């Protein structure tokens, strides 16, 4: 896969279709990969990498990159393309300036989970069907994928690209039965006290590093409301338990109807707070109350929160069919 991508990227650079390529770049460690823009074949040869650690959603970077001179090649995984469409819908990305190569994805590995298995000195990763082969400075380790996949990949909603100009690899399918709402349902079935305790435990870990906000493709504001002195809620860091709640509720609310469930928030959280469970609650509610809706399937139209029907349910529905 990596070699096909490199080959195609070089071709497109050479024939002038694009003048830059956004992809992933090796870091100090094999799992320490960062998104990067390459401007020449040499740079690509030197640093370009695509393997099972390349989880980053590149769409958000296109907000800035697509506004620069010339066309850009972007390699987008299926879930990244949903974010891409949503950002097109919000006029944040200039579509004409991006050439999308959709790349197939079989799920990305969570380095933390691998390390937690006692594997160290990781130098690389490869995969086939349902096994990852982790290369280390010692021996190669084989691990069943299901054990170390990123959470979002264990409940992958779609292997189908929402948008692309060309594809590398096979086009997958939308997975209607991903089970991604199972944990939300489980929480809903807890008692209010249990839920409160669960969230207090989770949210109190927040150190307000803003990683979730910075990585989130829906959190694409020029200036965040929490940095806006006129919003009345500007805060640099959460000083109290309430502010932890406030930040995460407001953030989830602001992306409600726009969140594609790409799972980046939870992936980057250094405190391992399951932030996706907040977003998925909104998605689940929207699906159940206002009809199935997947943000990013389309690149125009209204979101569930900027539309309505006259027969929408009343908020009292929360009493009738809310959590236990």
């Amino acid at each position, binding site marked *: 896969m990596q070699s096909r991508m490199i080959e195609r990227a070089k071709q497109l650079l050479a024939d002038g279709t694009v003048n830059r390529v956004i992809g992933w770049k090796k870091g100090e460690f094999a799992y320490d990969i960062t998104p990067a823009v390459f401007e020449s074949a040499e740079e690509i040869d030197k640093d370009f990498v695509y393997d099972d650690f390349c989880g980053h959603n590149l769409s958000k970077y296109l907000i800035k990159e697509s506004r620069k001179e010339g066309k850009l090649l972007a390699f987008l995984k299926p879930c990244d393309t949903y974010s891409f469409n949503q950002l097109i819908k919000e006029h944040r990305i200039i579509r004409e300036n991006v050439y999308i190569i959709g790349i197939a994805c079989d799920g990305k590995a969570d380095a933390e989970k691998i390390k937690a298995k006692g594997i160290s000195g990781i130098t690389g990763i490869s995969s086939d069907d349902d096994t990852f082969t982790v290369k280390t400075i010692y021996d190669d380790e084989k691990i069943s994928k299901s054990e170390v996949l990123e959470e979002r990949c264990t409940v992958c909603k779609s292997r189908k690209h929402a948008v692309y100009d060309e594809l590398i690899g096979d086009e997958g399918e939308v997975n209607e039965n991903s089970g991604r709402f199972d944990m939300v349902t489980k929480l*809903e079935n807890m008692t209010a006290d249990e839920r409160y305790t669960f*969230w207090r435990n989770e949210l109190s870990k927040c150190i307000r590093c803003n990683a979730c906000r910075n990585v989130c493709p829906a959190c694409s504001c020029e200036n965040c409301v929490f940095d806006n002195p006129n919003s009345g809620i500007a805060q640099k860091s959460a000083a*109290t338990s309430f502010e932890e709640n406030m930040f995460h509720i407001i953030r989830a609310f602001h992306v409600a109807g726009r969140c594609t469930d790409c799972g980046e928030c939870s992936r980057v959280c250094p405190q391992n707070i399951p932030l996706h469970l907040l977003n998925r609650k909104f998605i689940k509610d929207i699906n159940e109350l206002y009809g199935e809706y997947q943000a990013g399937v389309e690149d125009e139209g209204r979101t569930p929160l900027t539309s309505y029907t006259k027969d929408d349910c009343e*908020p*009292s529905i929360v009493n009738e069919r809310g959590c236990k």
Partner: protein
Amino acid sequence: MQINNEFKPKIVAFCCNWCSYAGADLAGTNRLNYPADVKIIRVPCSCRVNPMFILRAFQRGADGVIICGCHPGDCHYTSGNYYARRRITLLFSMLDYLGIERERTRLEWVSAAEGAKFSATMNEFVETVTKLGENKRLEDLRCKAE
């Protein structure tokens, strides 16, 4: 510390200017009592109520928050209350999901002619919130200590 049977809840009511605020005025004109614990904030439309305001009220020690607007179909701005209905529904559901007692939040449509409904709603809401007692789950302890 307050003893629970003397507990007086703090209730913030957001009322849209055109229907519910007028409904509240009508309750006054008709001398329809409801507890003094309810304090009304006038907003142009229920769609002006930002979830931030509701959370802020809880943060600052409110025990209950109620939003009142024109009946669906009667919005002075035609569609404001329809948007409000979706937003508020999802927010209430989220608060419920976080384990906050759902009885502390409420949305009610009150027209300018429904002074009696306004009063009855407030009486009922205050009673419900009083039963729940102080809001311990969503408040900023710093702000409460005075």
